């Protein structure tokens, strides 16, 4: 055995010693897992090497194997009898996709990204990842390598997809937080914001991938645990979607050199953060987008010449995960001294685990090696043969001739004991906020101030200052920009691109995310996120029929039953509403342990339970797409879909310091009918503009449409269709009920439009006006908002002026 390899003495260790080994080695393994390893090696009659135990820890990490989503859960809700769930993922996510059974799903949940059909020549891949823990410690590097990592997921799907679009969603603490209130050892939210945006900008722009969709959310509970979701869409030839590995194929590493950066990233992200995490510098990776661009340039050429049989990226766990996964069914042997290093001095386990960026592993038949190497050399990319795939069913790692790890693939991939976890959910009870209609006309004559405050609130206000730092036009295919309207500055519901230049076939990308509703019920939050993502797709001209979803769960510590109970609620909603809408999940990811602990005070903080739903839709002709800005005076404005008194978790309650209890429900029968008929009306050319009605309700939606189009509006709430007894003006104006849209229709199309959408509750609100005056009359007959679009726009653009 090599002198640089240590034996880890676990055979004689007691429970306390096992946990010390796990903790001090950043292994993030629990006692049951450590004991399973102890028993396995006990039977072999030897201790594991550091290379072996590290390999197991990476492979078994929450980050890599998603054990919470596969575990058995005993779930009890509101004091009812407990229910046993045999894995959240198979029960609620995978089963939804199986039940929906869309023929255009090419590959789901098995590869690095999901694959759906696009046209006769190409398929699309889509994946969204998170890079939360690294971004908390080093925002620029953490976020940049987050986008770099998810691009490699597309490149590592099938035999490699060309990355064509990035999408990014961030959740930060409040920018105006006083420095004195900052939790120990954390960065100020402003610093995190700036660093994350710069990191994503510099990586995405340099790679030449348009970043044309995203969202930014703010909540003080994200201060110590910011969330950074990075997504990538790729385009892949239909005959390059399958991979295989044969014994005798060479294990070839392509791309950057290996250093000591990013060691323990996988296990680090599977634990809570605390006030000492900032000193864990080496867990954050270092990005080099130009290296990654070169790899894409080289590998896509090699792919088209069929030079390799399989590909995956070196992400969490580095070579240990990449080679371990590729060789899972057959076996592999690797010689670590062949790895190209950034510098000398790495121990074998460090080489094996390093998460140095911009590295891919491919399986190359020996006869193709010289051609592959020639392509890589021509693009200035290193390609190194590390070993061979074997038929030993073992993962064997050598260093300078000595064997330093010898693990059975079966134990490595299936030896992890299935945990049993407890989950509880108890509906919270928050104080209710009554309608403020009574005060209207007395001291506070209107809802003007509320509307202005909502538009200026960080979650709703313009994100233009960020969006313009991203190149959203590169590759030449963007046809609906993230910013739309007469001055190119209104908030688009979704982006549309034509990935094949010259073809009018398009791809729509949108997202939905409503963490505030989790404070009432994570089930409603998840349902609303799905509804919102789908609304955004429909609003620009997409259809439910051709839409697929991705789920990204960011949660607190799932070992705590109340956090896990919230996760169960959200997962149940994923099944219920994906199946109701007929929109399958094709890929997803979870990031748990988003909690912060102050080691001095013992204070514990979790993020709001946050589910991001990303949606992708294929549309036959981009000519039928619409945008959200109103187009011409005298056109008619309608609200589509019923409004209910659903203000729990709403922004309106939020600005008045309330949460409430009636978060928006999704009524999928109504929602599906609404979206299908509206899609049909849009694609028949009967709608001039359409906007999703979400944060801030009807009030914010109509204001955004008016100032984006540069015209005023004269509206009346009398005809707003209601699903309950609500008649308070503020509730009608600011309720965030799901499955609603605002549309603009030309007068000559009034009848055709109304016939087209028959069966869906709609309400005629009023007209677009040439003059910039913006007036909304309440049910009482008084104007409750009376202002000009310039005032509203200026409020909404607050972040641009500050």
């Amino acid at each position, binding site marked *: 055995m090599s002198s640089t390899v240590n034996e880890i003495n676990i055979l004689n260790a007691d429970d306390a010693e096992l946990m010390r080994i796990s903790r001090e080695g950043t292994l993030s393994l629990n006692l049951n897992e450590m004991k399973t390893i102890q028993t396995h090696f006990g039977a072999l009659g030897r201790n594991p090497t550091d290379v072996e135990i590290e390999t197991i820890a990476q492979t078994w990490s929450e980050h890599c194997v998603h054990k919470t989503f596969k575990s058995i859960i005993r779930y009890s809700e509101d004091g009812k009898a407990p229910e046993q769930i045999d894995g959240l993922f198979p029960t609620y996510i995978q089963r939804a996709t199986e039940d929906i059974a869309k023929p255009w799903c090419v590959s789901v949940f098995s590869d690095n990204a999901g694959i759906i059909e696009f046209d006769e020549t190409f398929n699309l891949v889509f994946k969204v990842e998170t890079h939360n823990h690294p971004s908390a410690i080093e925002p620029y590097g953490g976020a940049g390598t987050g986008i770099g990592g998810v691009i490699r997921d597309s490149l590592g799907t099938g035999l490699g997809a060309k990355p064509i679009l990035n999408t990014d969603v961030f959740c930060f603490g409040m920018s105006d937080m006083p420095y004195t209130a900052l939790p120990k050892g954390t960065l100020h939210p402003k610093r995190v914001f700036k660093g994350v945006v710069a990191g994503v900008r510099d990586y995405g722009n340099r790679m030449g991938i348009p970043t044309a969709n995203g969202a930014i959310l703010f909540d003080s509970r994200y201060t110590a645990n910011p969330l950074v979701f990075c997504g990538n869409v790729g385009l892949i030839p239909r005959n390059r979607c399958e991979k295989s590995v044969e014994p005798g194929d060479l294990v070839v590493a392509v791309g950057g050199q290996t250093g000591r950066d990013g060691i323990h990233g996988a296990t680090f992200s599977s634990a809570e953060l605390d006030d000492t995490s900032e000193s864990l510098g080496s867990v954050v990776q270092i990005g080099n*987008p130009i290296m990654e661009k070169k790899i894409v*340039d080289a590998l896509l050429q090699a792919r088209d010449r069929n030079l390799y049989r399989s590909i995956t990226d070196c992400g969490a766990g580095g070579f240990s995960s990449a080679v371990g996964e590729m060789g899972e069914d057959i076996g592999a042997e690797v010689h670590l001294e062949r790895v190209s290093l950034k510098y000398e001095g790495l121990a074998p386990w460090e080489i094996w685990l390093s998460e140095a960026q911009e590295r891919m592993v491919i399986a190359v038949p020996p006869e193709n090696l010289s051609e592959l190497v020639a392509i890589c050399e021509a693009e200035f990319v290193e390609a190194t043969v590390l070993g061979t795939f074997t038929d030993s069913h073992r993962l064997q790692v050598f260093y300078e001739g000595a064997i330093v790890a010898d693990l059975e693939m079966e134990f490595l991939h299936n030896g992890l004991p299935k945990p049993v976890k407890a989950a509880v959910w108890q509906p919270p009870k928050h104080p209710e906020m009554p309608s403020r209609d009574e005060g209207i006309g007395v001291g506070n004559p209107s809802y003007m101030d509320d509307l202005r405050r909502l538009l200026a609130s960080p979650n709703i206000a313009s994100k233009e200052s960020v969006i313009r730092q991203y190149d959203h036009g*590169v590759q*030449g295919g963007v046809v609906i920009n993230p910013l*739309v309207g007469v001055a*190119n500055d209104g908030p688009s519901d979704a982006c549309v691109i*034509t990935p094949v230049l010259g073809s009018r076939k398009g791809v729509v990308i949108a997202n939905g995310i409503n963490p505030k509703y989790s404070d009432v019920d994570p089930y409603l939050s998840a349902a609303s996120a799905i509804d919102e993502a789908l609304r955004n797709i429909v609003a620009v001209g997409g259809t439910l029929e051709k839409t697929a979803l991705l789920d990204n769960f960011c949660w607190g510590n799932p070992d705590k039953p109340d956090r896990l109970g919230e996760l169960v609620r959200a997962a149940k909603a994923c099944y219920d509403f994906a199946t109701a809408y007929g929109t399958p999940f094709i890929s997803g990811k979870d990031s748990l342990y988003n909690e912060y602990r102050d080691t001095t005070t013992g204070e514990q903080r979790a993020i709001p339970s946050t589910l991001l739903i990303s949606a992708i839709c294929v549309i036959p002709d981009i000519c039928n797409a619409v945008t959200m800005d109103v187009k011409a005076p005298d056109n008619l404005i309608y609200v589509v879909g019923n409004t209910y008194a659903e203000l729990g978790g709403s922004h309106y309650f939020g600005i008045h310091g309330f949460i409430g209890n009636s978060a928006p429900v999704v009524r999928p029968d109504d929602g599906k009918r609404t979206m299908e008929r509206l899609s049909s009306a849009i694609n028949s050319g009967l709608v001039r503009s359409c906007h999703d009605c979400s944060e801030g309700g009807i009030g914010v939606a109509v204001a955004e449409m008016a100032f984006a189009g540069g015209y005023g509006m004269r509206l009346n709430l009398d005809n707003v269709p209601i699903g309950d007894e609500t008649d308070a003006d503020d509730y009608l104006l600011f309720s965030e009920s799901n499955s609603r849209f605002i549309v603009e229709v030309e007068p000559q199309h009034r009848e055709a439009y109304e016939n087209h959408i028959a069966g869906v509750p709609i309400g005629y609100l009023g007209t677009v006006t040439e003059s910039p005056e913006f007036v909304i009359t309440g049910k009482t007959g008084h104007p409750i908002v009376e202002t000009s679009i310039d005032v509203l726009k200026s409020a909404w653009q607050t972040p641009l002026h500050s």
Partner: protein
Amino acid sequence: MMQPKVLILRTAGTNCDAETETAFQLAGAETALVHIQNLISGKVNLSDYHILAIPGGFSYGDDISAGILLAVEMKHKLTDELNRFVGAGKLVIGICNGFQVLVRTGLLPGTDSSAEMTQRATLAMNTSAKFECRWVDLETQESPCVFTKGIKPCVYLPVAHAEGRFTAPADVLADLEANNQVVFRYADSGYPNNPNGSDADIAGICDATGRIFGLMPHPERFLTKWNHPRWTRIAEVQGSGSEEGDGLAIFKNAVNYVKANRL
């Protein structure tokens, strides 16, 4: 009729090559994406082509400053090839990073003896100190530029760059004006339509012959009307009934010039 051949130069970090290739193909040219290594090694001969296009991107990461490493490489390793190419009356276009490269090689604005390849101007960091992705109105100037012959007086194109502020010593700027070498100006001096704070609102220039052209905006991103950020506002964009974007004319002009002059 001979089909004009365009060499689209690539290197590490080039990223607008595919849409530049599409633009030239739509304009009727035969195209080749060529890595600079293949020009330096002699595997590919520049002289076999009629048009050299240097597309946008971040060549070599824009390390040191935008475009400089590729410029140095071209200046020192392809000196003769470039001089012969230009001397033969052939066309060169540099877009965004390509413009930065042409300015740093000295091919733009150029001197009376282009063989010198001395840098006389620069593209500095935007005055906003940020990357800017936005559409801008351009005014087409009277110039000898063959790429913009007969083009509309007002052109709408996107920019996407952090280092696009054209600046040069007063005498160089005076020469540019005297020789009509300014091809495009940002139509409004103020930010954001002049997105980078360029001197004299300069968005694109040519050499004295009009055959070497560089610009910060991206004509290859406006090939069809659906690229226009306001195509859904029909009245404004669809007035002409054409499905062609403003950018395509630049590539068509180049291809037609090659055909007309039998280069």
